[in-house]
């Protein structure tokens, strides 16, 4: 579904030098796969996701989504943002319908579709509220509904639950799993939580920093549909422990290198 070949991207850093955010990244994501991406902060996870979204131009390499080379944002991909990125002056309904509006869907139809999605993410009755009146978890539900409303084939999520409290985060994880079970979207999900990466992902991509590269891809052979009770299984504990070992090694390598 997504093929990334030899992707490199550097930025001009604050000191004027170049910061290599991604260096020669190769990655394949299968159709209907739930891929989680884990790595220390600054290792290029967001850059990778934005490159797939078509939001940042890359220096070299290419990204092919569903057979078409990515040259910019497209209707096959939708993004969910860590800070929600909701229009503060617009109602929940208008926020959810925003992607449809930008894609030229007529008012009646987009409102109908938005209402259905608002109900699906459990926000029925909140259509006329503004983001400031909602909790963080509810705001991210709006963000998810907005992305799903445009019926993408690929859902790109950048630490979507990083800014919500622990209980809400657990609820949202379960809801996302059940949405994905039904829709079978292809999901690329960035997180800095090992537990989250394992609970949600079919595979966990471990990235390492400076330069941003894929260190390892760890398969998660846990049965689907997944339930919370999985957290007590030996396999789950084994994979999270392994990921933690690797992350700690990276951290120490990085310290030694400085």
């Amino acid at each position, binding site marked *: 579904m997504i093929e990334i070949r030899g992707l490199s991207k550097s930025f001009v850093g604050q000191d004027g030098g170049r910061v290599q955010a991604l260096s020669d990244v190769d990655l394949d994501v299968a159709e209907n796969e739930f891929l989680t991406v884990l790595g220390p902060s600054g290792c290029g996870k967001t850059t990778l996701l*934005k490159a797939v*979204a*078509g*939001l940042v131009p890359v220096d070299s390499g290419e990204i092919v989504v569903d057979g078409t080379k990515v040259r910019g*944002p*497209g*209707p096959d*991909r*939708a*993004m969910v*943002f860590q*800070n929600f*990125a909701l*229009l*503060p*002056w*617009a109602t929940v309904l208008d926020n959810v319908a*925003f*992607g449809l*509006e*930008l*894609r030229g869907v007529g008012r009646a139809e987009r409102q109908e579709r938005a209402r259905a999605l608002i109900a699906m993410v459990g926000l029925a009755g909140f259509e006329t509220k503004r983001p400031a009146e909602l909790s963080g978890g509810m705001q991210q539900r709006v963000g998810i509904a*907005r992305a799903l409303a*445009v019926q993408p084939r690929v859902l790109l999520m950048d630490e979507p639950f990083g800014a919500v409290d622990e209980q809400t985060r657990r609820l949202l994880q379960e809801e996302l799993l059940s949405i994905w079970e039904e829709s079978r979207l292809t999901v690329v999900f960035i997180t800095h939580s090992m537990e989250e990466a394992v609970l949600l992902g079919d595979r966990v991509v471990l990235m390492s920093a400076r330069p941003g590269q894929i260190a390892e891809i760890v398969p998660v052979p846990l049965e689907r549909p997944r339930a919370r009770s999985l957290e007590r299984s030996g396999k789950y504990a084994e994979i999270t422990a392994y990921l933690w070992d690797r992350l700690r090694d990276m951290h120490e390598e990085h310290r030694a290198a400085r």
Partner: protein
Amino acid sequence: MTRRGHLPYQLLTFVIFAVSWEVYARVRGGLLIPTFTETVGASVKLLGSAELWQALYASNQALVLGFALAVGVGVPLGIVLGRFRTLERFADVYLNILLVTPMAAIIPLLGMSVGYGLAARVILVAIFAIVMVVVNSRAGVRQVDPSLIEMARSFGANERRIWTRVLLPGALPAIMTGIRLGIGRAVTGMVLVELLMVSTALGGLMLEYRGLLKAPQLYATIVIILAEALLLISVARWGERKLTGRSVR
């Protein structure tokens, strides 16, 4: 609701102010300081005179034209400066000059270049008001969360949609604040130019009353100008609330 809650306090301070004025004027007395009651009386009388309405009309001509010019140029300019940082490098110097120049110093230059007619008054009003409009519009665009622009782009927005659906709605409250603050500055410019440059309209009237030592009339004219400014600012504030759906103080 807060506005209504303020009213008793505003009335109270006004009463204290009026009484202090009255007492001070009566005790210190003199030809040049009218009492509060004399001033009120003169205001009422003036409001019934054709002379005042002609002066108001003439002054407001410059005010309306100059202010419209300031908004018409200032809002787009501020928005563009807010969005395109590189332009800003060129414009910043001039904006700072506009901010710090004592405006009265511009008057002789203006007189020399466009004469002492309506054009000069309009331009001065515009120069007075435009700084507030530009600076606030620019700040408004700049404080729009960049991740909203990114979000809109990710859903396929082109530059035009980013402007109409993200930047302008996001900047609107600040733009309206700039317009409101600009009104106050425009009134200042209007009076100043008539006092210092072309002795006409309200400013001319004030100079005339001063020359004739008609203190109550002089004070009354100032009161009327203040009342007009307050009225305009209230209208702007009301419009601001209507447009942005937020409470404005």
